[in-house]
């Protein structure tokens, strides 16, 4: 039994192909203006990876901000439920999922059965999400991938009172003018996102274990800031999937559940 989970996110479209509970492959493409075309492309790439024909797929479940555009999906489910299903499969002990994507940060609280008890999503401002790190990387002329590593070399915490991406950028510019080392500014950026996400998590209620997922969880500098905020280690998935694939994985699992009679 082969199913597909598609997570059409604000920045990337992620696909997971699942056969009898095992991940066969994953694929990711940029979410373009034509969202359905992006989903198609990601699905075709994934199928090509493993040499499976499209008609072998029994069920497709879509999630993510653009899920409604995927008209060929059999079902849709919110990122909240997809995350819950995905993380429970990887870390059954997790009670709080923190998902930081490109445009949204989400906090999801689960019960011992992996069911969603409560959740929070950041408001309109993207200061608590990945797009913010990207903008700051541009301002600092640093490769996005290097941000994490560099911030770990910081020796000093610099307070940054970032309410929104635009204001934060002008704060970063002031810090540059003050000759603040790049490493410290990058750490300040990560601390600022971590503070916003932690505030939201406290509102929803944090219960151990805590998992960090979404693309920004690949940033070790951000993980470090979150760990400092919470005072204990967070679980970041590596196997069978990396953090940004958790919702797509969850969607593929939900597709499989559906075929197994819910």
């Amino acid at each position, binding site marked *: 039994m082969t199913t597909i989970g598609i997570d059409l996110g604000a920045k990337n479209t992620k696909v997971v192909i699942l056969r009898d509970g095992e991940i066969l492959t994953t694929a990711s493409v940029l979410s373009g203006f034509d969202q359905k075309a992006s989903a198609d492309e990601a699905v075709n790439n994934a199928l090509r990876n493993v040499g499976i024909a499209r008609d072998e797929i029994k069920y497709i479940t879509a999630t993510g*901000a653009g899920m409604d555009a995927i008209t060929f999906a059999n079902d849709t*489910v*919110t*990122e*909240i*439920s997809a995350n819950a299903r995905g993380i429970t499969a990887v870390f059954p002990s997790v009670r709080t999922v923190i998902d930081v994507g490109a445009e949204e940060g989400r906090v999801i609280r689960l019960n011992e059965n992996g*069911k*969603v*008890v409560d*959740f929070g*999503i950041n*408001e*309109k401002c993207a200061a608590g999400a990945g797009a913010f790190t990207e903008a700051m990387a541009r301002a600092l002329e640093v490769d996005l991938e290097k941000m994490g590593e560099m911030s770990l070399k910081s020796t000093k915490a610099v307070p940054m009172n970032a309410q929104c991406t635009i204001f934060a950028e002008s704060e970063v510019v002031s810090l540059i003018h003050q000759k603040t080392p790049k490493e410290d500014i990058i750490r300040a950026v990560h601390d600022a996102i971590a503070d916003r996400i932690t505030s939201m998590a406290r509102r929803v209620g944090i219960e151990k274990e805590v998992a960090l997922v979404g693309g920004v969880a690949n940033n070790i500098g951000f993980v470090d800031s979150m760990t400092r905020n919470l005072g204990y280690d967070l679980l970041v998935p590596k196997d069978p999937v990396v953090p940004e694939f958790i919702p797509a994985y969850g969607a593929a699992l939900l597709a499989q559940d559906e075929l197994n009679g*819910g």
Partner: protein
Amino acid sequence: MVTVQMEEKGIFDQFKDWYTNRHEYAKAWKEKGGKVMGYFCTYVPEEILYAANILPVRILGSHEPQDVTEPHIFAMFCPFCRDCLAQGLKGRYDYLDGIMIAQSCLHIRQTYTSWDLHIPTDYSYYLPHPMHVQSPQATPYLREELIQFKKSVEDWIDKPITNYDLKRGIEIMNANRRLMNQVYELRKKRNPPVTGLEAMYMVVSSQMTDKHEHNRELESLLQKLSTRDIGDPGERLMIIGSEDDDTEFLAMVEDLGATFVTDDHCTGTRYFQEEVNPSEDLLNAIAERYVKRVPCPSKDWPKRTRLDHIIRMSKEYDVQGAILIQQKFCDPHELDTPAIKEELEKNGIATLFLEFDVTVPIGQFKTRVEAFLEIMREEDLF
């Protein structure tokens, strides 16, 4: 079947039409030779205005972004009060003969004050209204204020308002309340014959049309509703919060398969639930009604009387989930939210908290509401 549905849907069209074309309606009404009073807040005693044959029209926003209020209202005052003022500054209410407010919160009072300062009308009145409505002195206080207000209206229209007029004013208001309560009563049914969106059109339109006409429409509606069946409501929701005429939001939620079966809104039950009990002293009777009505949270202090009220309503309407929604920066509502949330959840009712702005971010809200419904549906399985 489909045509019947379409035809049945039409029974709320008149309310929607009044709401959508509120300015055209008021202008046409005025042509017939009456005065129109724009008012802020549902603490304004419309009985006295109806007694004076004045048409009360509640001033609401338009949900469009605007750039005209910045010099007059703080950016962190609620979006609703700014949206209302924008309507005035843009001249959309240029037909008003007067404006008035009864004190509730500072934000909307700033709208009134600014309007009074910058948009000339023939008449304006600030009605002090007791904040401490739980005090035994609140009714006598308001009665004294109503005496002054009545006198001021009499001077304006140059005609005395008699006891007979007041009785007329009370009767028309009470009839409107009674009829809307009857419609709400039907929403308690297993399959309510009314959607939340339709109920909102009904109540909000009553705040801006001549209640004689509105009452006739309600009477005819009630006859049609007795046999109307719009099927399984899905999740039975209650909507609780500040001023809300965000019809687009209600439509989105109900499109997802749930139904609002009741509300605690000043564009809903808080507006019409209680009638005036006419007694010898009519102004005292009116004062008593506005002091004892289900309060706006700006007046619900020191005891939070709304808690018991909301729980009672949620049981009567068999509510499964509640959406707590408020205007951004609305401190009175925000202060009550944790207590209301806790009380509802203690009673097994799922809650979702959202904040309104001038425009409704439908996409972002949809994800939250869908996840909320998913949680409720999951629970159903076990």
